[in-house]
């Protein structure tokens, strides 16, 4: 009598599926959220912004200045939209936000260059958003060294930049072109699953309590473990659907490389999905109503996005933030998924990120089952 039975579990699973089918809005959310996030993060967000509006204040129309401007334009970062006649006007354009950069080429630029006086080329940036200006500014540095090499010929060759004492070689592995979707799209798997899995399970159980159906369930012979598992199994399937959707999009829309084993991703995801579902269940045992359940889920969701390494580089965070991030399942799942997809990692390489997931699952599940009340005491 006290033991787990399959028919009661099956009754719960069937019921959940019927309810899921009837609840169009939730079902729409489960499919809509991954699609929307894919579109937003995959297409709309770019960590390497190009074609930024730029004003030119040019007082020297010599060939060197022309070569320079042409080189800046071909770098793709600068979109020359206007010319500023005076310094005051240049300032105004920056202040209004009409341009991101002002490039100042002084009057005697060519003359000073020929005299070997190292003329100053001033680039002013609206640096309120460092992410917008950073990549462009590094591009300028790369350009400036050799841009004039072709013009500095014959006797002028002595003005060319000399090679430094060290030859730096940089190989950007796994994503040499620095494409944002390679990083973001695999990361979305963790974010989407965290968002939907935690909220949906937290709601599914709190709803039973809010509508009074829990009292009825408690009065039947169904066991707590059967109720929980019955709630979890349908959403594991939903989680796999979402995962598949994102992987398909990664392949078809974003051309994300898939170097490693997809089977390994599917296998590891079970652990991650279960960890989030267990978290949702724990929230549902703490929440008094559905609103509270959603609020709690948000408390979990925000750090999962911000501290996991999805939005910002994990190693760039202060130590305490890294410590908090290391508790969250999403942090480890991101490493696993990016590792498998982009680097072709196998089980041995991802193992260090697996056990924290397992630990989280065990703790969340234990708290959830312990807090789930079988009687109303």
């Amino acid at each position, binding site marked *: 009598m006290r033991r787990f039975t399959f028919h009661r579990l099956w009754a719960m699973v069937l019921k959940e599926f019927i309810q899921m089918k009837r*609840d169009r809005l939730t079902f729409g959310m489960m499919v809509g959220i991954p699609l929307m996030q894919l579109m937003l993060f995959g297409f709309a967000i770019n960590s390497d912004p190009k074609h930024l509006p730029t004003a030119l204040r040019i007082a020297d129309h010599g060939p060197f200045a022309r070569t320079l401007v042409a080189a800046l334009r071909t770098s793709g970062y600068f979109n020359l939209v206007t010319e500023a006649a005076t310094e005051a006007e240049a300032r105004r354009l920056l202040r209004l936000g009409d341009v991101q950069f002002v490039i100042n080429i002084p009057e005697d630029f060519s003359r000073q260059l020929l005299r070997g006086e190292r003329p100053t080329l001033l680039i002013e940036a609206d640096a309120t958003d460092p992410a917008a200006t950073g990549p462009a500014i590094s591009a300028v540095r790369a350009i400036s060294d050799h841009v004039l090499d072709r013009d500095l010929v014959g006797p002028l060759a002595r003005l060319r930049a000399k090679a430094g004492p060290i030859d730096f070689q940089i190989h950007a592995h796994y994503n040499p072109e620095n494409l944002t979707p390679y990083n973001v799209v695999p990361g979305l798997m963790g974010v989407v699953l965290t968002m939907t899995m935690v909220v949906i399970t937290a709601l599914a159980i709190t709803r039973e309590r809010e509508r009074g159906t829990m009292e009825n369930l408690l009065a039947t012979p169904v066991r707590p473990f059967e109720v929980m598992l019955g709630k979890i199994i349908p959403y594991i399937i939903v989680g796999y659907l979402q995962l598949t959707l994102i992987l398909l999009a990664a392949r078809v829309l974003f051309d994300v490389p898939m170097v490693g084993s997809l089977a390994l991703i599917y296998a590891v995801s079970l652990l991650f999905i279960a960890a989030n579902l267990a978290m949702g269940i724990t929230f549902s045992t703490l929440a008094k109503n559905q609103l509270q359940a959603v609020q709690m889920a948000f408390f979990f969701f925000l750090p999962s996005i911000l501290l996991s390494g999805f939005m910002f580089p994990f190693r760039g965070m202060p130590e305490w933030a890294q410590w908090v991030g290391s508790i969250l399942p999403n942090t480890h799942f991101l490493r696993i998924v990016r590792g498998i997809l982009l680097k072709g990692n196998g089980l041995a390489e991802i193992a260090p990120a697996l056990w924290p997931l397992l630990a989280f699952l065990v703790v969340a599940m234990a708290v959830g089952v312990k807090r789930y009340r079988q009687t109303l*005491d």
Partner: protein
Amino acid sequence: MSGSAYAIDVTGVTKRFGDKTVVNAIDLRVQRGEIYGFLGPNGSGKTTFIRMLCGLLTPDAGTGTCLGYDVRTQQADIKRHVGYMTQKFSYYEDLTLRENLDFIARLYDVPDRRAAVQRSLERLGLVNRSHQLAGELSGGWKQRLALAACLIHSPQLLLLDEPTAGVDPKARREFWDEIHRLADEGLTVLITTHYMDEAERCHRLAYLAYGNLLAHGTLADVLANGRLTTWTVTGPELITLAAALRGRAGVEQVVAFGTTLHVSGRDAAKLDAAVSAVRSPRHAWKKTSSSLEDVFISLMDQAKDNFA
């Protein structure tokens, strides 16, 4: 199951929430096949008591059995043989009637489930609505569904918590006819209600106030133990008369019923004295038997003095 003649046999059952005693040392015996009415004002502990009987709550003190199973230790066995109908409708509004019944039947592992679901739909006249969502039903139909669902596993004891609240008189009467049919078949029913006419349809009654069992027995027992004397008056200007009666020694209740006034008190001699003081030929006075409601209100007033 023990061969005991009692479906419910508990003594000293107590439940506290914090430092508030919600159910205070209640002794109760309900015979198999009996319809037992549970009455009392809101918050008197009826629901808490029922929840202890069906294994949802564990009593803080007291012992006893429900269908022969210990109410403290064999809650899982009790759940299998008891049908509990909650005060609030507690089936799934986004499931159809059939899906709801099918779900409950699966949870109890009812043998030959499909046939059992079909039988219970037929018995309560729900077949034509079996594909309707439970949330679309009116109060009366929801109550039928709830009854069908808590009968699906053929329980031996039904615990019904205010099943007829908000149900129209005709549906109420049909519900009670069904309850009597079930009792005839040997089912024991414990039912809470606020309606006096329903109380009178029970084999036995108990009256609860502030967690204490104040009276129990058959209708006649309860009326006799109330020791209440009641006069009825008809005539003109009853409101003035009522004002004159209230506050006199021996007069405990003055209640208007349409064109008659009921005047009751526990001390017959004092009440008679009070009545003679205001009596005039303009009104017709008659001594009658007290109604159940008079007795309950009197009990509640006493309880307020003793416990509240």
